């Protein structure tokens, strides 16, 4: 059976950062210099891995508890929640959302991170969750700290959480970063400003969400994620021909 609705909208490359961004120095030698080859989608691209509850553990979405060794991690307790939608504003259910972040002092639990802020013995810094039928996900964690990085002499990353999302087709695959409302470092960051359009940058900044905060326990931030939408093929050739 042909599934003519399985193709995805074209990716708007002017909305995403360009591969080559001079002020983000590492991108200079890591950006293809020749044009990308434009390809019409086939079954190889509109399909992708699927995930289910058996793939993840019961604490995977709770970064306050999933690496705790007899104590609680240090830092501002927060909930990060939102929905995964597509460009048609339809929820993306049962999709895998993975996150990773520095601890409250701005230090990653990674052997390549040598920043002088200390490792937190009770904080691993990674989590994962499946979206529900309405595309909703949530994590509990501590707010990550800002940290310096080697680009210009005095560059600092704004507080951020890395987010990885799948969707239903391999070409919806997306990695991005979530920033926090009110952080003065956001617009000074050469990684953030690889994104040319100010509205696109705004879409990565999570607002404080007092409605989702838990009184006397933790604050909340809301971060919706939009993946490429599916096209309803009206008068076009079908993906698999006739």
């Amino acid at each position, binding site marked *: 059976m042909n599934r003519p609705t399985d193709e995805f909208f074209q990716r708007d490359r002017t909305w995403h*950062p360009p591969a080559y961004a001079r002020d983000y120095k590492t991108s200079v*030698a890591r950006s293809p210099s020749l044009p990308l080859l434009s390809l019409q989608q086939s079954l*190889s691209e509109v399909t992708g*891995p699927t995930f289910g509850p058996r793939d993840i553990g019961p604490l995977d979405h709770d970064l306050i508890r999933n690496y705790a060794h007899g104590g609680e991690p240090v830092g501002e307790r927060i909930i990060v929640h939102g929905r995964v939608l597509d460009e048609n504003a339809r929820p993306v259910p049962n999709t895998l959302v993975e996150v990773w972040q520095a601890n409250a002092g701005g230090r990653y639990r990674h052997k390549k991170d040598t920043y002088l802020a200390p490792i937190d013995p009770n904080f691993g810094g990674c989590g994962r969750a499946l979206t529900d039928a309405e595309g909703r996900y949530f994590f509990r964690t501590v707010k990550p700290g800002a940290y310096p990085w080697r680009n210009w002499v005095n560059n600092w990353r704004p507080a951020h959480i890395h987010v990885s999302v799948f969707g239903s087709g391999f070409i919806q695959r997306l*990695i991005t970063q979530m920033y926090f409302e009110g952080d003065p470092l956001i617009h000074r960051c050469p990684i953030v400003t690889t994104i040319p359009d100010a509205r696109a940058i705004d879409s990565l900044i999570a607002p404080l969400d007092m409605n989702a905060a838990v009184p006397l326990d933790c604050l909340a931030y809301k971060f919706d994620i939009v993946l490429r939408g599916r096209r309803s093929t009206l008068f076009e050739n079908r993906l698999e021909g006739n």
Partner: protein
Amino acid sequence: MVQPLDYLKETPSQTAGPYVHIGLAPGAAGFEIFETELGRDIAGPNAAGERIEIEGTVFDGTGAPMKDVLIETWQANAAGIHPHPADPRAAEVEDGFRGWGRVISDFDTGRWSVATVKPGAVKGRSNRMMAPHLSLWIVARGINVGLQTRMYFGDETEANAADPVLNLIEQAHRRATLIAERTAPGRYRFDIHLQGDRETVFFDI
């Protein structure tokens, strides 16, 4: 004035950064947190077809191996079927075949390798057969939007010559950048070059 188009805009991409391993391959990066590490077993124990190993290195524009890359692979099984509801034959896929893999390059050498089964040919657009291939997605520090490409097999000369995607590449000599060299029975080598004379063909799909 016209009516507004009310589509949402895709969330913009940001680099995976140097610590992508924490989130996506914590076990491979040397710390134990999850019971199940995802993407380690592509084919599972029941998959038919030839068991193969693919190894390679990703090189930056200066020719240096990239030691902080994460690659995801996606493929059909040996019969050319994807384990996904959009594939009309998905019910025939062997139990345990995920088709999806995730690997990081070695912190010291930049080498990566994956074990899987060789995929079968897949029907492409207009019913034209596509030669056996893996779809690859490459992220790392310095890569602002994940790079999409394909890996074909060097011992599929006839199928590769007829492949509709390889034939889209205008400069014929660049087609070889998508074809893995067979170095021994069941072993392939696939190097990826982000820039330079051998720059890999990357896709906008």
